[in-house]
């Protein structure tokens, strides 16, 4: 069994699978939340996890990060089983991931900067204070908070700011894997869009793998590479939104093809069209200016120039 599992783990690393959940069952008393659930998360992808309320999205996340002991099943993270690990081994895995809880879960007695420093101090006790302070500061600014909020206490922040501070803490140790539990819930649309852009930017820049629980259809369309759908106590489908739409599952159809789903898809299309339009406009403006400045006889040549410089 051990030999087999090791082979499996090595296989995972070659296949670039960061999280493998196999045959997971979770139950609370009589109520079964997950019934033989399987899921794989690939390296470098943003995987959106959707599902109706009470389908166990958060429980799945809690099982993967080890806060919820599953009734049965296998969970491998970074190719190593999470089940039979001692405290030191568990710590080795934990220092490679960051978690953002639904309401930020900031430590209320510490300032925002001190909150961000907690994982750094815990995992890298040798860092000197100056560097700790600098790291906390740039992480906080990078998540879109004003620099002054570093010295504030969580109770002095709004809900959206607390979420950003929570993200700064989750990113403190530059994790390879990021768990986000409804990061855009309760944010205004502008804030939510900025949050989406931030997460996508971090993924592109640092090659993060993101496990993202969300109800936000715009987020799904905007940044998720694949979407896993939780229904009937297991993952009914994983794929891009287009792939999911091709499936004949009533819940998926209702979810993505409902009025809100269609609106989100349309707004994505619109923004893509608007981008194209803007680009085309710029080309046209470019052409016009060049055309006005130069003589009419050379017009065709100038147009080509204008097109190239764009």
């Amino acid at each position, binding site marked *: 069994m051990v030999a087999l599992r090791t082979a499996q783990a*090595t296989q995972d690393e070659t296949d670039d699978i960061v999280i493998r959940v196999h045959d997971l069952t979770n139950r609370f008393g009589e109520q079964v939340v997950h019934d033989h659930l399987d899921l794989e998360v690939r390296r470098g992808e943003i995987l959106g996890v959707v599902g109706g309320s009470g389908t166990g999205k958060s429980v799945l996340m809690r099982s993967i990060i080890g806060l919820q002991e599953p009734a049965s099943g296998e969970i491998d993270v970074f190719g190593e089983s999470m089940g039979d690990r001692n405290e030191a081994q568990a710590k080795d895995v934990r220092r490679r991931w960051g978690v953002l809880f639904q309401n930020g879960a900031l430590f209320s007695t510490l300032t925002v*900067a001190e909150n961000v420093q907690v994982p750094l101090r815990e995992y890298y006790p*040798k860092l000197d204070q100056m560097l700790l302070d600098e790291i906390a500061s740039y992480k906080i600014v990078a998540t879109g908070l004003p620099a002054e909020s570093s010295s504030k206490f969580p109770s002095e922040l709004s809900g959206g700011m607390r979420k950003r501070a929570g993200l700064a803490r989750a990113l403190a140790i530059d994790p390879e894997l990021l768990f986000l539990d409804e990061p855009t819930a309760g944010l205004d649309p502008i804030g939510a869009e900025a949050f989406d852009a931030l997460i996508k930017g971090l993924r592109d820049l640092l090659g993060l793998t993101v496990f993202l629980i969300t109800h936000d259809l715009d987020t799904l369309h905007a940044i998720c590479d694949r979407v896993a759908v939780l229904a009937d106590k297991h993952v009914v489908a994983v794929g891009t939104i287009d792939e999911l739409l091709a499936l004949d599952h009533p819940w998926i159809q209702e979810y993505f093809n409902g009025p809100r789903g269609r609106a989100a898809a349309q707004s994505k299309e619109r923004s893509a069209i608007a981008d194209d339009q803007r680009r085309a406009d710029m080309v046209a403006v470019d052409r016009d200016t060049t055309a006005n400045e130069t003589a009419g006889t050379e017009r065709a040549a100038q147009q080509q120039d204008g097109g190239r410089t764009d």
Partner: protein
Amino acid sequence: MLARRNDLPHLARRMTPRPADFAQDDRTLRFTGAWTLAQLGDVPARLEHIDDTPEIIDLSGVERMDTVGAWLVHRLQRDHDIRIEGADDKAEDLIGKVGQVDRPFQIQPDEPPSFQRVLGRIGKSTVRSGHTVVGLLAFFGETLIAVWQVILNPKRFRGNAVIRQFEVVGLDALAIVGLMSFLIGIVIAQQGAIQLRQFGAEVYTINLVGRLTFRELGVLMTAIMVAGRSGSAFAAQIGSMRLAEEVDAMRTIGLSPMESLVLPRVVAAILMMPVLAFYAAMMALIGGGLFSWFALHLPPVTFVARIREVVPLTDVYQGLIKAPVFGLIISMAGCFQGMQVEGNAEAVGLRTTAAVVQSIFLVIVLDAFFAVFFASIGWI
């Protein structure tokens, strides 16, 4: 398992990144290895102590870089005006991005000097105490208005809620109040007997137990127990209802929180306190009586006869007069603090503590006033 990994060279490279390092070569700093947080080791400390300022950082030997590595490069560049060479697109991008979020910062909020801070805290708590007193008075007034409203319109009286609170405040407290009073009766009898034995006046133990429990200890200990049990529960229940906006929802539906939340609790506490206090006094008598029987060999008949001789009825009245007042104070403090909850769950805890502290404090202060008052009207 590790051996197996090393069989795969491309994997081994990923799994075991080389630690970050640097070497100074004339005016060039050559960085090598993985400049990631996990691989930094003592590099940040060593970077602090480079002797002469380099002009060029060569990043061509860097395998990987995360934001912390990029920050170190950015910091060097910022402080010493150094040129960067050999960075790949990603590293360059990362260093640029980190540079964009470099701001002056402050980790701890500003704190005034300690002398000023102490003065400030004294001032603030004085103002807060003033506000609490005024708030409590206003709350008392609101409760009276609610009582008046209910009297004008008796249908609005919530009988069911009051009876439910009877159960919570009175019935559920019987076991703990009874046990506590029983033990206190034993303690008084035992301590009294030790002292009085020196004068050969052991029989006066009965006077001590009888008078003390009816006048003071029965009602006082009950009040403290009720403050801890019910006063805190009132504050916590109403406080969490405030947090969940239940109280606001009641107002919008047209229910008065004073009538539906506060009044039943206040009425229940006022009516249950005398019952509990009398019960507590009786339990203390039983405790004291049993102790006298077994340790002092005073039979129960003697004990009861002597109690009837030495305990004037005014002692019982005193207890029964004080108890509803204490009940009022405890329930008012609990409900008042509950209604003051605002913001987050932490406030519920703080307010609950405040409710218990205030009610016990007020109970003891009033008890002192009562003692002086009853003495001056001749109920000695």
